[in-house]
């Protein structure tokens, strides 16, 4: 990862702890009662997406806060997708993969794990906080596990509250269409 590519001036939240609300319990309570977390879940096609379908097939209710985006492999999850999700308004991101050794593409889940580890360090530096990005494994048969992980994630984000994001959307300058126009990336992998 080449951190020099990150223009810190244009990445709001960078010098912001993002945790100010925790020192004000009343405010936090207010957040908890009204706040509906928005979470993006990147699910691999073969295991975790099938696990989510399994939960559906057995009609297990869970909080509706996770918006699922299917990718063929968790290894396809570019760390920039995760940043993009925060920029576009997500309060949390879930990356779900096949269990170690079960990856349909042999080792994509290991790559995803490596990138997630790297991303967590960066999320702390950005003031977003590593708790807002969870990587986990769900197999095609683990509907219950999918529901458990998802529910825990919603609870975690509900407790953390929304991301302190004054002007965070500026990060858009570094991704999406702008990225291809500018021809550079904010993170290498």
């Amino acid at each position, binding site marked *: 990862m080449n951190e020099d590519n990150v223009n810190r001036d244009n990445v709001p939240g960078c010098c912001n702890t993002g945790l100010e609300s925790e020192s004000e319990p009343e405010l936090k309570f207010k957040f908890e009662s009204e706040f509906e977390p928005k979470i993006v879940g990147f699910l691999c096609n073969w295991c975790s997406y099938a696990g989510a379908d399994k*939960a559906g097939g057995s*009609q297990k209710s869970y909080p*509706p806060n996770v918006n699922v985006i*299917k990718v063929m492999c968790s290894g396809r*999850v*570019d760390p920039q*997708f995760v940043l993009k999700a925060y920029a576009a308004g997500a309060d949390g991101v879930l990356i779900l993969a096949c269990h170690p050794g079960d990856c349909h593409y042999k080792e994509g889940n290991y*790559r995803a794990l490596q990138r997630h580890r790297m991303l967590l360090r960066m999320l702390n530096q950005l003031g977003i906080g590593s708790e807002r990005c969870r990587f986990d494994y769900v197999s095609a048969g683990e509907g219950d596990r999918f529901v458990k992980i998802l529910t825990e994630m919603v609870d975690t984000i509900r407790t953390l509250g929304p991301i302190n994001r004054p002007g965070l959307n500026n990060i858009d300058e570094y991704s*999406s269409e702008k990225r*291809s126009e500018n021809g550079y990336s904010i993170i290498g992998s």
Partner: protein
Amino acid sequence: MKIGVYFCNCGTNISDKVDSGQVGQKIEGIENVSYFKTLELMCSEEGKEFLHNDLIGEKPDRVVFAACSPREHENTFMRILSGADMNPYLMQMVNIREQVAWVTEDKDKATAKAANFIKGAIKRVSFHKPLEKKSIEMSPDVLIIGAGPAGLKAALTIAETGRKVTLVEKRPVVGGQPVLYEDVFPNLECAPCMLEPMLNEILHGEHAENIEILTMSEVIDLSGFYGNFIAKIRKSPRFVDKEQCIGCGECIGVCPVAVKNEFNNGLDDRKAISLSFAGGLPNVPFIDMKACLRAKVAAPSAEVAATPAENEDCRLCDQSCPLGEGIIKFDDEEEVIEKHMGAIIVAVGASLYDAGLIPGLGYGKIPDVYTAFEFERLLSSSGPTGGELKTRSGSTPESIAIIHCVGSLDSNHKEYCSGICCQYAFKFNLMIEHKLHDARVHHLYKELVYPGKEEYLLYKRAKENPNASFTRYSSIDTIGINSEDGRVRVKNTESGKEALIADMVVLCPAMVPTKGSGKLGELLDTTNDMFGFFEELHGRLDSARSKVRGIYLAGTCQSPMNIQQAITQGMAAAGYVLAGLVEGKKLDVEPITAAVDEDRCAGCRICMTVCPYKAIGFDMEKQKASVNEVLCLGCGTCVAACPAGAMSSNHFTNDAIYAEIEGVLA
């Protein structure tokens, strides 16, 4: 751009929780959305017919189907698009049944979530590009490396369908390891009798013309990929005309040179011109030019001392040939041939763990300590003693110790059970009993295994041998073998018991990959498992496939196994070939692959290191990566890894995924 959205109520499965009217309102006004239509049951015959006609009437540029899981009906709707003259990749399915309606209690929340999902799909689908399945020509021919039971069975199965097979075998004979055995477990069937019909079928049967057997040959190079491999094969000279020789053996008797016979594990000598062993097929001798008197002059090397002049034109074998001149070809030369084929089956077999690595066992130092392979030859009627059990000094053994689990189940050696050693050890027990009625047979083992429907009976019979004893040891390091007064002393240092006195000791070492299999794996670009065996694609689902598309595995090169399993795996590998590589059919190439933007590629090759399929090559001239669309399976790991953004993933482009992220959060 005109986007059409179809919403399926799925009976009441979706409409119970998600209100299509409200969803319609929520997405109203989104750019490019031209219409929103609700159907009762989209996958029903009426539903499909409606969609077909509606797509033809509306002519949308992109379509979104909000319905069940794409895992259920994505292909159905892709076919409907194709039927309506649209590219099937120009649609996106939204899973509002399994992932919304069935899992959300509150109706309003379910409706809102469904709307988010649909917004994501609408945003995404505008980035979809029409993709075409490509097809390429492929060769239906097959290369099989290794002519043991697994390779032979595969060759025969494929040849029976009229397909061409090239069978490459390193040795001068076919049949693999079991043709060297007298009997095989579990029912002590005569091994040559068991294999001979298959060997004859291969050599002279109805489909023999479809099988080209290249003995004394090795694959030395491979290029290409599934459907279009090109292999270079080195044929070592045999110096005897394989087609004309009748195998009478006259030439062998007259040869003046004797060398150690590797087919009998060096337990006796053979001539410089020799058959591998009696009954070895093809029944044609070969000349070992390293040993032949002529070669010593013809090809002088540092190792070969100057030879007396009278030997330089030794033609005794040639002169003895009843067919006359020309059968023995002293001028036969090494040849490298090229073969084009669509698939490869690797069946190179295994060998035994080097018992010399466990010094306490005395292997290689004490003459009457043998490996199981050597003992098989001593039992064989085509072996060095003609099947008579004798010690090196020529006496009949009174007591034989069989050490199981040599180098197996041991973290210092091989941490697995080969699964076959107990069976052949019990077989040895019975064969010893048959040959020498009174000889004692001592089994020393760490574990005994006899899985399967016939295997236990063999163990039971071995147990019933009144002269047999079974003793368990905990570690091979506790076994000390020494020679004493011409006999062998086997002492278990853990036990207080007296040492066993034996005349012969048979070691049953772990099965390990053959020496050359690492090198072969390198040139085939296959992977090895932690033990060095050829690694299968999946241990249970796909053990006959390697991780390289179009290269299949059969027999003990993949894992220790018995003959039955090897033959079955040979059939499995043949099945993969016949099912996937159909004559006259082209190879479909899925369009969801990675692609390189050469202008952006800096040639760093990170993509190559993360690709699990070796699907990314490197153009040395341009210094750019290139994707092989046949090998790429579209996982997208390289796309996420490319630091320059030069890799993209068809159908899962960054643009499409960014748009979907924006859409679901809007």
